């Protein structure tokens, strides 16, 4: 267990606790502050995962900009009446609680499915179509990058240089070598050692992982549609908020 792991779990614990406190706090100012704490701790978790840019973006955008405005507005309002409104039992409250429960169930279900899918894949029993493109079954012994980092986390022994036997065993475990009993030539052996070494030493294969260049390249080429779609969604949300505020009964209703 490295310091990174310890820190990751500590931050995860704080994140969960602060997220719970957001909901269970009666004082809206504290709720907003705990949400800000939750966002910052999520950023810190990205730091421990070596994703520096994502971490910093998380802190700047959510904790540093969005939540500051929330906290500011919440502090200015007298929200006592609102909190009483929420605590009162009514059909609307029931609907709210049900919706929240539905979302929780959905999240738990998806994450559970995701975990089983990764586990199945690592065990070599992958069901076609259950995983994302990144976790596809390796072809011709070529290991996708995501698998490399996953299995490197799993192996306890992080030797700097693996022997051919170890390398073969490791690759078999990952389903990289289609014929485990087949004898390999010396050249192929050397290749295997190289691959497994890259797999084993955690620092090297992820040198560019999480850097701005890698991230922006992925964001503006492979995921450009998703990226643009999300920004369009945000625009719709802003227009919707303005429209709601200006509609009849809204805070900025005109004439």
């Amino acid at each position, binding site marked *: 267990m*490295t*310091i*990174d792991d310890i820190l990751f779990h500590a931050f995860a614990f704080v994140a969960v606790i602060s997220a719970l406190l957001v909901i269970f706090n009666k004082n809206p*100012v*504290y709720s907003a*502050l705990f949400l*800000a704490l939750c966002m*910052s701790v999520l*950023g810190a978790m990205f730091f421990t995962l070596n994703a*520096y*840019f994502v971490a*910093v*973006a998380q*802190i*700047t955008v959510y*904790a*540093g*900009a969005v939540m*500051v*405005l929330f*906290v*500011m507005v919440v*502090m*200015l309002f007298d929200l006592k009446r609102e909190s009483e409104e929420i605590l009162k039992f009514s059909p609307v409250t029931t609907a709210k609680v049900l919706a929240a429960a539905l979302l929780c169930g959905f999240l738990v279900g998806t994450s559970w499915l995701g975990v089983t899918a990764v586990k199945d894949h690592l065990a070599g029993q992958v069901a076609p179509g259950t995983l994302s493109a990144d976790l596809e079954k390796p072809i011709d012994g070529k290991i996708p990058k995501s698998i490399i980092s996953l299995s490197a986390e799993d192996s306890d022994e*992080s030797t700097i240089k693996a022997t051919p036997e170890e390398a073969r065993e490791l690759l078999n475990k990952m389903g990289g070598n289609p014929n485990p009993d087949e004898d390999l030539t010396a050249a192929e052996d050397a290749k295997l050692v190289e691959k497994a070494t890259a797999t084993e030493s*955690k*620092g090297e294969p992820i040198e560019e992982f999480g*850097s*701005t260049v890698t991230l922006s390249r992925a964001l503006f080429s492979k995921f450009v549609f998703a990226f643009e779609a999300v920004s369009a969604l945000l625009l719709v949300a802003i227009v919707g908020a303005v429209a709601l505020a200006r509609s009849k009964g809204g805070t900025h209703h005109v004439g």
Partner: protein
Amino acid sequence: MSGWAKLWIGTDMGNGLLEIIVNTIKIALIFFAVVSTVPLLVWVERRGSAFMQNRLGPNRVGPLGLLQLAADAVKFIFKEPFVPDAADKVLYFMAPAMCLLPAMLTFAAIPLSTPFTVMGHTFKMQVADINVGIIYIFAVASLGVYGILAAGWSSANKYSLLGALRASSQMISYEVAMGLSIIGILMKYKTFDLTKMIWAQTGPFNFIWQGHIIQPLSWLPNWGIFFQPLAFILFFTAGFAETNRLPFDLPEGEAELVAGYHTEYGGFKFNMFFMGEYGHMMTSSALITILFFGGYALPWSGGGPVQVQEFWMSHSSWLSQVIPLATGEAASVLAMLTHLICFSIKMGFFLFVYIWVRWTLPRFRYDQLMDLGWKTMLPWSLANLGATTALLFFARYNPL
């Protein structure tokens, strides 16, 4: 590798005992360095302001009034702590720490000098070497607003709340202009890494225009300010607003707001706000040094840090007699000290300018402050960004 060595050196980053111990010491050192520079700055501020205004300033305690710092510190600690009756106790006590912490955290990413090697171990003069250092500093600095808001709200005082609102809206407004002003220079350096920025500024003034290296003025150092003078002015101005100092110290106003968000704070809790403000000032000066003035690299030193290292290496014959280290290691330590002094001088100059401006310019009105931030500085930084982008596009376009 034996078990003990594995534990000591570690197999991975953040794994070895040595690295953990060294980092812990570094964190403590940086914290105490920043905190103990604050009294010195206060002394410069008080004596300096006195000389600028043809007064004497505090000159009774110790030589040149230097022990006034100690007297102030003692007073801060021994003052009676009080809490307003209607205050929200938890946030009231947390707010000073929430203010001080981000200021200290930002300083962690500042590279103070070149790395040095002792007994085969290389130590970086930086707590956290993050490859997105500059955005990290912006991100953590933006968390400082929470402390101010919490202080204003929890004090249960209208003046405090209004002061907190002023301070936070001012900080948010100027963050925009501040962030936009440096994008141009980041595009020029092609990196977010503060150390790489310093290395990009070594050597004489030169740039690449369509595949040709152009070196018009070889006596000028290759500093960022000569490429982005407007960005420097905008960044420096926004720095004053971010630290809530004159001429932008609107959160405090004796006549309208008493002392703003820290009206209800006294003793050591007030001192923590104070140290937070000076911590922000120091980070801001360090950033200006790194972004626009070559960081720790000596100007006119040719190859920059490499040249300094080579200079000390060439004196290795007598170095090894004076310093009980291997010659290469002694040279690296001396190069580190040289760069540290260089960095301190540059940073100290900007700290002095902060103090100088405070006692020279009158303060703005609040609407003037907002006008300056949104209607003047934001358009100028956007224009600077657009112009830089176009210029860089043509400069990097290679017709060959």
